[in-house]
């Protein structure tokens, strides 16, 4: 660039400065608009925090809703002391962890098999897995509801209105996508690695655990984060399958029990939302790159 600028001579002197100026303008405008968008994007979470710090009295007084005059942690304390909220939290946490484990146990071997050990029908199956990811929960909740009722009638195992039953259902939301991203990760690992392993006499299972798992670790972390956030925030299935207050998970619990008719204890509701959103937010804050890798893997790989 500089060499060519010198070659052109005096005319070049004006060019870079105008370029620089237009670039500075572009940068300036970018910042202006990004600040506007950031205000729009961050408004609800900030509002949750503001309201969570207010007392009911201050909210009822209808002072400036965008400012806290007497911040208090009472709402958070009250929630942490309420067995109901802690039950919601525990249900959500146990479900999310169990679903992550089940998902990885199913998705990783399956992705290895479909992506690396070609067998008859493996490509069709991989496409099929992807297609099932496109079948939404809002299409399946009614037949699943009926199936769970049917299981109760025939075997006596009550699945409806039991939070642990969600552990069986949630993997349908997480496994297809996790398998899909893991297939992408496994396929990006060079072929020479498994040839070397085969020559050294490793079996396929050894190959998976000793070579592929360590190499594909970023993919596994991304898939784990995806599975966790999906099962943490799922709303439709628990809404349809659980009713009793001690069987609810966080999102449904906040919506159905904390919002009671006309007694809106908004400070507490907002505090509950904020604490409920904390686990995914904390994971995101610490593992942002993996989170984003998992997000973009679905469409850019494949």
């Amino acid at each position: 660039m500089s060499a060519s600028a010198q070659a052109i001579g005096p005319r070049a002197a004006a060019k870079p400065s105008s370029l620089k100026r237009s670039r500075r303008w572009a940068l300036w405008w970018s910042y202006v608009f990004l600040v506007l968008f950031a205000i729009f994007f961050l408004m609800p979470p900030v509002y949750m925090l503001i309201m969570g710090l207010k007392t009911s009295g201050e909210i009822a007084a209808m002072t400036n809703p965008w400012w806290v005059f007497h911040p208090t942690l009472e709402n958070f304390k009250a929630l942490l002391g309420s067995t109901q909220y802690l039950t919601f939290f525990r249900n959500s946490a146990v479900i999310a962890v169990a679903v992550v484990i089940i998902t990885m146990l199913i998705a990783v071997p399956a992705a290895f098999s479909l992506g690396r050990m070609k067998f008859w029908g493996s490509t069709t199956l991989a496409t099929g897995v992807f297609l099932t990811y496109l079948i939404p929960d809002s299409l399946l909740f009614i037949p699943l509801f009926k199936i769970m009722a049917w299981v109760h009638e025939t075997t006596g195992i009550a699945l409806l209105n039991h939070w642990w039953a969600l552990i069986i259902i949630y993997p349908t939301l997480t496994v297809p996508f996790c398998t899909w991203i893991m297939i992408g990760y496994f396929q990006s690992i060079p072929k020479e690695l498994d040839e070397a392993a085969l020559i050294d006499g490793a079996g396929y299972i050894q190959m998976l655990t000793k070579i592929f798992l360590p190499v594909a670790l970023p993919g596994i972390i991304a898939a784990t984060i995806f599975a966790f956030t999906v099962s943490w925030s799922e709303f439709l299935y628990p809404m349809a399958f659980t009713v009793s207050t001690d069987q609810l998970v966080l999102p449904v619990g906040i919506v159905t029990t904390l919002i009671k008719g006309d007694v809106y204890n908004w400070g507490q509701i907002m505090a509950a939302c904020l604490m409920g959103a904390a686990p995914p937010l904390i994971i995101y804050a610490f593992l942002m790159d993996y989170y984003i890798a998992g997000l973009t893997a679905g469409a850019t790989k494949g």
Partner: protein
Amino acid sequence: MANGIAAKAPASSPARRMTMQKLMRRRSTTALALALPLIVLISTLVIYPAFYAVYLSMLDRTMEHFTGLRNILFLLHFDTFWMVVKQSCLFAITAVIFKALIGFVTSHFVHNLPAKGQRKWRGMLLVPWVIPTAMSTIAWFWLFDPSYSAINWLLAKFGIESIPFLGVPGWARFSVILVNVWYGAPFFLIMYLAALKSVPDQLYEAAAIDGASWWQKVWYVTLPMMRNIIAITMLFSLIVTFANFDIVRILTYGGPVNSTHIFATWAFALGIQGNNIPMGASVSLFMLPILGVAAYFILRDINRRGSSV
């Protein structure tokens, strides 16, 4: 790889062929065994329920008599149903278009920033996507609340009359779309940013040398290079938005007077709350045509890319 080993030993003795065969056999059985849990899970909890939904939709309310297409025909003569169809399409299409536009614009702004600051901004702008929708929608619900509305409070400061966000059909429709756009636009931003980063700088330099204006660069370089990602992200989002449940359920619950019901919430209201499972199943089945079309295009894109690699 098996061929490679076989080629190295052209004199393949029978014994060697035996082990190769055994290996092949072991290989495909292991492969099948590894994929089996996935196949079982998907066939029992996704494929079977999907077909079961079709069967359920053909029963009568007591679920004892087979009525064929009567539920579907009933829906086709039901005004509320057509309102739900219209609202679902309006909701999904408008939301996806705005998400794509905001995502496209903001991704350009973020891309303009110096590399050091990009991470921070990207991290901040993705927050709506990370918060569970149920919880952020509750916050929106209160932001819209008629008596305490924080948005109306701001509008009042500018001398604008308060708006009944969730009380009037038109504004309620606007509100559910707005919340969906708020939630989904960051996903587009991330996807488009990844796509922007993959456009080689040389193309822009070449365009600049040819004297292309900023618009021309966007139109002739960026858009063609991003076309695939733009299309696939929009199709994905169309499916997810079309099947959305949480936002409408929490924000308006279909009201006022069913004006914001979309397929999922109406199916829920009829099937689970109204205890008319076959009718709920029939309603949710109407999502299939759109899902099918979107899935077809996504699949075509994947296959094309698969063969080009």
